């Protein structure tokens, strides 16, 4: 057995590691811990105490928020599982015409900004939405049906949005299963459904667990969707409202901090549980591997029709929101009528003439964040995959924990943690615009570090060793051999980072100051101000276009890297 040799640790590697460690401590660990620390302060006396927690749990209003959040998160896991597993199975096992397109589209919801779905479903399923108005027009119902406003609506909107987490992770899992596992079951007499239930699904539980965690943690940290759907009794929403709007009421502010801390704790705990589970139950080692496509099962007749119908059904669910937003972006007076009264470029024009800074800010902040994240991701990938430095697990642990930390927690952390004047500039970091790209970097970093790290791991080590023995130093080998060979994976990670950075709002909403509004913040403000829906829709439409452009480039450079980004959390 050949074991990977890590070689001797050079001074350069120690410097890189130290810098990375400093980064994660200052910009990830410290802001999170300062919030936790803050939550143990008495609002009035500032003395250390657990009174805040006692108060939180004894107040039925706040306590109920915790219960609601957990229930919504679990229900969303349930719905995404029921919807997603069949889709993943169809995409992984059957060779349907247009499979690549469906696979790409099934990814779309999570890449689109979260409020796109909520806005679109209000237009479609709202009290005065298309469906209700149509039903009333043809006289089927007298009163509008409440499709959306309540737990059921929240779970519905979240489920469509988070479906890709389940589909992507489980489909990747199914593709990786050694075909002989299923074939053996069939030879033994278990076919069809029985084989799927007894062999396929149990084998992909590790990947499914990663996907389910991502869904769970997203719902826990989502403040925006409940608010758009008119609900505020959820942990993240209450945290947002209390801190952003009631910061003067010191007691409410502290209850908000507690809510954010609790959402984070639940999320981090579930991440740790899933990681432990995945490590214990990793079946990959048993398998001898398979082709890139994995096992393909031929189907025909009614089964084939059913497979197509199901895929089309989910594709409609996925495409519904971007299409509706696109219509809304080019129309006015879409109120109380099933379809817009007239179509116009007015919304887009307003956006470009009056609010160009939204677009500018989004692009500039995201680009700066990308430039900062790139060396961090490359360095982290290198340190984790190619060195033996003790303490690299700490680096990995803190970086991974970002996946579980709700944006709201990070926003609060940066707000509280960097509110002290810096030397030389005599200004606190939270008042300098650089805070925006900094928080974007930290929050979206995992998408890039994970793809980069995966690329390093996939790179055959002997390719680098061959350069060493040819006389190349470590540094020279990195630039001549390693970097060119992992470039594709790094590039894919950069695109994914950008897609996720331009839609970020949860953390930045706490930090922006007048003039720093990004497109997502602009959309939220416009919506909150109650201006005509066309303008926020137009802003969302622009974001969708950005995302689609990045997605097209992405699909050309290698989708397979994506498995590494989400799977095996």
């Amino acid at each position, binding site marked *: 057995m050949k074991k990977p040799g890590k070689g001797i640790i050079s001074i350069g590697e120690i410097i890189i590691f130290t810098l990375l460690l400093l980064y994660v401590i200052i910009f990830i660990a410290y802001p999170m811990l300062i919030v936790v620390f803050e939550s143990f302060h008495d609002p009035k006396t500032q003395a250390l105490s657990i009174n805040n927690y006692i108060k939180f749990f004894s107040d039925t209003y706040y306590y109920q928020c915790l219960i609601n959040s957990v229930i919504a998160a679990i229900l969303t896991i349930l719905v995404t599982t029921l919807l997603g597993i069949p889709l993943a199975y169809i995409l992984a096992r059957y060779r349907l015409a247009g499979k690549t397109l469906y696979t790409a589209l099934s990814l779309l919801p999570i890449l689109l900004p979260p409020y796109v779905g909520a806005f679109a479903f209000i237009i479609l399923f709202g009290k005065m939405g298309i469906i209700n108005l149509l039903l009333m027009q043809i006289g089927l119902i007298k009163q509008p049906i409440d499709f959306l406003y309540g737990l059921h609506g929240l779970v519905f909107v979240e489920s469509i949005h988070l479906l890709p987490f389940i589909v992507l992770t489980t489909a990747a899992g199914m593709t990786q299963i050694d075909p002989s596992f299923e074939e053996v079951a069939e030879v033994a007499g278990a076919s069809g459904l029985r084989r799927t239930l007894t062999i396929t699904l149990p084998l992909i539980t590790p990947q499914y667990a990663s996907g389910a965690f991502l869904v769970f943690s997203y719902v826990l940290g989502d403040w925006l969707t409940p608010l758009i759907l008119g609900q505020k009794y959820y942990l993240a929403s209450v945290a947002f409202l209390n801190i952003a709007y009631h910061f003067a009421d010191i007691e409410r502010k502290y209850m908000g901090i507690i809510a954010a801390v609790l959402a984070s704790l639940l999320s981090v705990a579930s991440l740790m549980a899933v990681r432990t589970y995945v490590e214990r139950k990793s079946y990959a080692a048993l398998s001898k591997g398979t082709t890139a496509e994995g096992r393909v099962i031929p189907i025909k007749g009614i089964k084939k029709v059913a497979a197509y119908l199901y895929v089309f059904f989910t594709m409609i669910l996925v495409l519904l929101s971007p299409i509706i937003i696109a219509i809304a972006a080019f129309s006015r007076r879409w109120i109380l009528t099933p379809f817009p009264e007239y179509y116009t470029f007015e919304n887009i024009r307003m956006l470009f003439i009056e609010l160009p800074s939204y677009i500018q800010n989004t692009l500039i902040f995201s680009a700066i964040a990308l430039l900062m994240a790139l060396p961090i991701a490359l360095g982290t990938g290198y340190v984790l995959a190619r060195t033996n430095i003790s303490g690299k697990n700490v680096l990995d642990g803190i970086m991974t924990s970002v996946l579980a930390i709700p944006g709201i927690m990070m926003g609060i952390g940066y707000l509280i943690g960097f509110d002290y004047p810096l030397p030389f500039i005599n200004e606190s970091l939270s008042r300098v615009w650089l805070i925006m790209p900094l928080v974007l970097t930290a929050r979206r970093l995992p998408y890039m570090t994970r793809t980069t790290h995966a690329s390093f791991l996939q790179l055959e080590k002997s390719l680098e060793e061959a350069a060493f023995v*040819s006389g190349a130093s470590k540094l020279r080998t990195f630039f001549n051999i390693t970097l060119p060979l992992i470039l594709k994976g790094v590039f894919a990670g950069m695109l994914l980072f950008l897609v996720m950075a331009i839609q970020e709002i949860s953390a930045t909403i706490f930090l922006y100051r007048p003039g720093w509004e990004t497109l997502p913040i602009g959309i939220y403000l416009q919506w909150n101000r109650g201006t005509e829906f066309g303008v926020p829709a137009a802003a969302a439409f622009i974001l969708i276009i950005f995302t689609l452009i990045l997605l097209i480039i992405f699909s050309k450079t290698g989708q397979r890297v994506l498995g590494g980004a989400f799977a095996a959390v």
Partner: protein
Amino acid sequence: MSMRQEFVKLVKVVKTFKKVTAVAGVSLSVNKGELVTLLGPSGCGKTTTLRLIAGLEIPDSGEIYIDDLLVSAPEKGIFVPPHKRGIGMVFQNYAVWPHMTVFDNIAYGLKIQRLSKDEISRRVKEVLELIGLSGLEDRYPTQLSGGQQQRVALARALITRPQLLLLDEPLSNLDAKLRERMRFEIRSLVKNLGLTAIYVTHDQAEALVISDRIVVMNHGKIEQIGKPEEVYKNPANRFVADFIGVANFIPVTVKKIAENFQGIVVTEDGSVIRCTVSSRLKENNKAYLLIRPEDIVLYKDSPPGENTLQVKVVHRVYLGNINYYWLNYNDLEFRVQTSPDFEVNEGERIFAFLKPDKAIALPE
């Protein structure tokens, strides 16, 4: 410089990975111009030993010298990184860089040495001719067959004119025919260039064909070092005998040791066998009698006297030029090779004569 000068020397080298000891105190000398094979089953530490010599692994303790220069000595804080050891190495999976042409792959080491463009292309051309790849300079590795990639890897290892060539199972990914041809090619290349080479393989036939000397390894330790015929005919112990060639073992007790290691052993059922006795055995020791399939003569009846065992035919395989028999002796299975003319039926009781000059009693 004499021909027998030590070129590579390992002194009590130890390497552990987490809790697994991969190399457990290996000492070894390789002479200048010698082709030495590290042979053993997977996990025996042979590849790790090679990588320690290359500097791709750092030993936990011990010393490694290349050309009288101390290159690894953790106790003294000495470690020369691989790119400063002046070696050439061929990897099991070839490790040909997919983003570079054949020319760029081979020229890489020379570019690092900052040679002139003319000099580089002259030497690449030279080595391509030597290795039989002329005309493929502009191809990318994906456009090459496995055998051609293997040659590129070899050319890349030779281009810097290293004194020491390290080969890590270089032929294991080739098909059987090509593998046999490449054995000879590699050997003659190494000899013609006057290189010192260390060659790792798990294939005993390959080791017998290619090596000046074979180092048989197991569990991170050296079991025997010797010329191919030595390790085959005079294995140090049961493991070596079993690993190289096909071996039958019969548990025996040493009864008498005479001059020149000739002696007498007794099987469990009292049969007396004359054989060579390992120097590591004493009288009354328990031992294993090694007898190779080609060193047994079968008789249908009339036992010719001593060194004969009564056996039962279990199974026969006809291989064209030979007959191969599986025999049962006291619930012990052993294999015998006979001429195709010798035919007995399965289930028959016959007699096996063990050639006294070929049978060896070995310690465990």
